[in-house]
């Protein structure tokens, strides 16, 4: 029995992820008859549109089932070491914040949105000195100069073009 909390956490994640992959594969295989492409009657088996995706799903599904089963068995053995610490919601919050950042870009433009987003990230993660705030603004301006001005990358036109308004004075 291994009671290392880190290993126990890894196994718990592994069981969950492999289980999810298995369920995904089963769902896709269930949907395969209607969604794996058109294969006209009389087509040779090697030209069938379903051959590759179905083979890949079977391969991934069987492997995922075994990985999940193995990890789950280990998780049960290590149950005593699990802390069930649910405080670490960092990635979920970050993912939501990134989605909000994309929407903010559509609203006020890339550079102001980037400045606001990095400032907010710094604030939320404890980087609250003035030099951190200055760095956030400097990063946004540097990215504007590099990508939008120098490399001329097109970004979506914002609803409120703050940079344009600023440039027009």
């Amino acid at each position, binding site marked *: 029995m291994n009671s290392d909390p880190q290993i126990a956490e890894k196994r718990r994640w592994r069981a969950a992820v492999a289980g999810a992959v298995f369920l995904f594969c089963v769902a896709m295989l269930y949907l395969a008859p209607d969604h794996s492409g058109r294969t006209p009657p009389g087509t040779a088996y090697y030209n069938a549109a379903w051959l590759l995706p179905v083979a890949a799903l079977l391969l991934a599904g069987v492997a995922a089932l075994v990985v999940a089963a193995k990890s789950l068995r280990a998780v049960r053995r290590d149950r005593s070491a699990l802390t069930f610490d649910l405080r670490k919601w960092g990635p979920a919050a970050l993912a939501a914040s990134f989605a909000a950042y994309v929407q903010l870009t559509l609203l006020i433009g890339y550079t102001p949105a980037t400045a606001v987003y990095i400032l907010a*990230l710094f604030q939320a993660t404890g980087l609250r000195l003035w030099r951190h705030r200055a760095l956030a603004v400097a990063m946004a301006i540097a990215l504007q100069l590099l990508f939008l001005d120098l490399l001329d990358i097109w970004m979506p036109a914002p609803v409120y073009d703050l940079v344009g308004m600023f440039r027009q004075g």
Partner: protein
Amino acid sequence: MSYFLNGFEQLTPLLILVLIAGAAGGVILGAIPGLGPAIAVAVLLPVSFTMDPVVGLSLLLGVYSASIYGGAVPAILINTPGTAVNVLTTFDGYPMTRRGEARRALGLAYSASFIGGMMSILALTMLSQPLARIAATFTSADYAAAAFLGLTLVTLAQRGDLLAGIMMLGLGVFLSSVGFEKVFISQRFTMDIEFLRGGVPLVPTVLGLFAISQAFALIAGDETHVAEGKARRSTLRELLEVFHYPVTLFRSAGFGVIMGVLPGVGEWMAQFFSYELAKRGSKTPEKFGNGAPEGLIAAEAANNAVPASAMVPLLSLGIPGEALTAMMMSVFLVHNIIPGPTLFESQPEFVGALYVAMFLVNIFAVVFLYLITPWLIRICHLDQRIIGAAIFPLVLVGAYSINYNIVDCYIALTFGLFGYAFKKADLPVAPILIGMILGPIFENRFRQAMSIADGDWTIFVTRPVSLGLLSIAALILLAYLHTSFKERARNES
């Protein structure tokens, strides 16, 4: 070789300036996670159309080659490959950084990359026409066998975690099949969602699985790494250490050259072939993935040997081998230059100038990298939260600028969450990408080969090339199973 020597006569101050700018820009863009050569070249493509063809192509080649050099830096320092082809560099480069050997790892990477690049150019200039002739004889069965060997090697590379490797590879191959399939032009697993009709886009997937997931880990505080106390350039001894591993170095560079010549194969298979062979040939294979210098050398020498050799099929046959050379072909066409066998006769000065441009770019890139190492190495000293926060705006631009579609940003975000979960579960993500790249190659070539042979499987064993490749796959598989059974028997006893 005469083309190469004549190419020096084509050098102009503008061309040299463009090469320096391309090398410097490529290194910096390559070092920024998520901004690899594909994005950089795609962004610069319209700019290059306005230039003289030699100058425009030199700029793109400079960015392409140098970005792979630069991509090794974040792979080694912050465990995020700057470009997708630097994935394997993270395996051994980052553990070396954690051990406080960042400078040594960078020195090895620079030298291996330089040797790989130079060998590639040497091969290109001396062997381009004969090599192109050989590659031109490859049939669909040979390509299918090569892709199958690649898929086998990728799976077996996850030593001790074979099932996880199979699972991830299967997922990758499945993802590659989403979208329109080419034979009957029908939709596969698009679920009537419009943006899936074009398939699961590779670049946002790469950005999500590697860059966003790494940003999550950096900001959430999951990642801790030890940086070197002093930010100094690699010493000459560290740069020359690569020659302590001559077999790994030259074999990997050689593989890179061969794989670069084969259309559609490229850096991915080159580095995986080389890495796996270096591991099998090593006296300490258990150190691979934990900071083995040989692993780092194999990955870097192989992937830097590809850019110049990838130009062989384009220049000699007019066939772009992969996305980047396909972009470059558009520069040829805009300037009404037809790549192919006649190019060597009709425009020898153009071919020579390209050879020289590639040669000089390698020198400029490694010199520039060496000079800015103290600044690049400072990335290690930056607060992880700052690096993590900086990744998001870069990913937003990188994901959006491929198709100018905001949906790609959300795809990258989704894969970022998947990548984070895979990271927490200690599941390898590289097989997903390999599956996404090799899956379509295998499917298309397999279908072609079987159709040509009218369903006769023996086509794969009657061709010497495909037979050889499949035999290698079978031998490696048998060797793996033999080792596994022996290990299990030893553990049980």
